[in-house]
């Protein structure tokens, strides 16, 4: 059972009469990482939550491989501020494996592999809520991979991390993408997008202004807003 492609048709969302997203048409297929870019308040996080099926649009439809059922099958999400369970690091992973329907006999082995992948083996018995910011993000990443996703949704995965933790997370992202996992990242980190993105969806005031390959986006953006964004001008949302 696959979740891809995801098809959004005319998706709009308003909160208390304030439009957050307007007329979003987007199809996401397997392939290189897609970056949702745009200033704060442009609707990136909301769009990710729709992709994950955590919210219902005010109007428009979302289809996961032709199905309207929002229950996640082969997709996972790492939130900007991941909430870890009040258990040990290993127990957090075992929980995710259990919920993903991994067989009991496999869980311990998968858990160890994931801990090795993100470099948290030595912290396996630590309470997860006592980890540092970078360690938390790694554990949240491992927990998302526990679902063996084909789509991995990341919301500002390195926003509050120092450079070494950022590098570690970016390496994990690149590795996951190499293994064929479709990555969708909300970010306003241009450097990160240059390093990782296959294509770019540029959002501005809740609308998609550009959907293009990363190469052409960085060479020649099509809209004035994207140009400004690339130049690093402050785009003030109203």
């Amino acid at each position, binding site marked *: 059972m696959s979740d891809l492609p995801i098809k959004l048709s005319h998706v709009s969302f308003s909160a208390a009469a304030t439009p957050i997203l307007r007329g979003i048409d987007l199809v996401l297929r397997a392939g290189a990482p897609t970056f949702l870019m745009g200033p704060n308040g442009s609707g990136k996080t909301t769009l990710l939550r729709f992709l994950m099926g955590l919210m219902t649009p005010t109007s428009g439809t979302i289809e996961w491989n032709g199905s309207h059922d929002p229950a996640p099958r082969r997709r996972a*999400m790492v*939130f900007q501020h991941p909430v870890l369970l009040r*258990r040990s690091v290993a127990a957090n992973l075992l929980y995710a494996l259990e*919920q993903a329907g991994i067989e009991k006999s496999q869980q311990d082995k998968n858990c160890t592999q994931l801990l090795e992948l993100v470099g948290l083996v030595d912290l396996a018995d630590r309470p997860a809520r006592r980890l540092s910011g970078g360690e938390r993000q790694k554990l949240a990443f491992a927990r998302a991979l526990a679902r063996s996703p084909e789509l991995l949704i990341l919301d500002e995965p390195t926003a509050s991390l120092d450079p070494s933790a950022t590098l570690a997370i970016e390496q994990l992202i690149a590795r996951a993408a190499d293994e064929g996992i479709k990555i969708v990242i909300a970010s306003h980190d241009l450097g990160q997008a240059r390093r990782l993105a296959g294509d770019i969806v540029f959002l501005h005031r809740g609308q998609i202004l550009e959907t293009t390959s990363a190469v052409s986006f960085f060479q020649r953006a099509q809209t004035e807003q994207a140009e400004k964004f690339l130049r690093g001008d402050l785009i003030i949302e109203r």
Partner: protein
Amino acid sequence: MNEGSGALQLVLSGDPALYNIVRLSLVVSLSAVALAALIGMPLGGLVALTRFPGRALLIVILNAFMGLPPVVVGLAVFLLLSRSGPLGSFGLLFTPTAMVIAQAVLITPIIAALTRQSVEDLWVEYRDELNAMGVKPFARLITLLYDARVALVTVLLAGFGRAAAEVGAVMIVGGNINGFTRVMTTSIALETSKGDLPLAMGLGLILITIVFAINASAWGLRLYAERRIG
């Protein structure tokens, strides 16, 4: 002052009748807490996680029933269990079982209401993550009850404190029968009215010590858990 030293002597002498009273008090109140937790915690969790017509009313009722007067609970259970009552055929009136039932009725709303609050707060925090992991409703309830475990220890304490301290309910349904249904609070009431102040004070001393010890160990457990669990 005479009464005070008399009380202390009584406590230290290890008088078997006295310790039977203490033992029964603990057995009754701890059983009531266990029974109330068995009902109140899943109930509170369910109310926290489900939406149904009349939910707001149920929450108001649970919260209001946290302050149920023990004598009224005692009377209600008395009417249920008395010979002519609907459950009279079980012959439970004036037995320790009746006392357990009455205290459980008294504290189930406390445990349910406080559990609901803890679970609901945690659900707000966990909702997105659990939904993203595709956690089913029943597993959700178990997860939240488990992850709220530190807070739920305090909830149990609140229930135990209420059960151990009340007189009215156990007096009415237990009858304060010497050697059978006499507990600390009912004997304190009786001995005070009889004028046997040393015994009343001795029992009061023990009651306070027990409540203090249980709270202290629960607090220690909480500190330990917060360090371990975060």
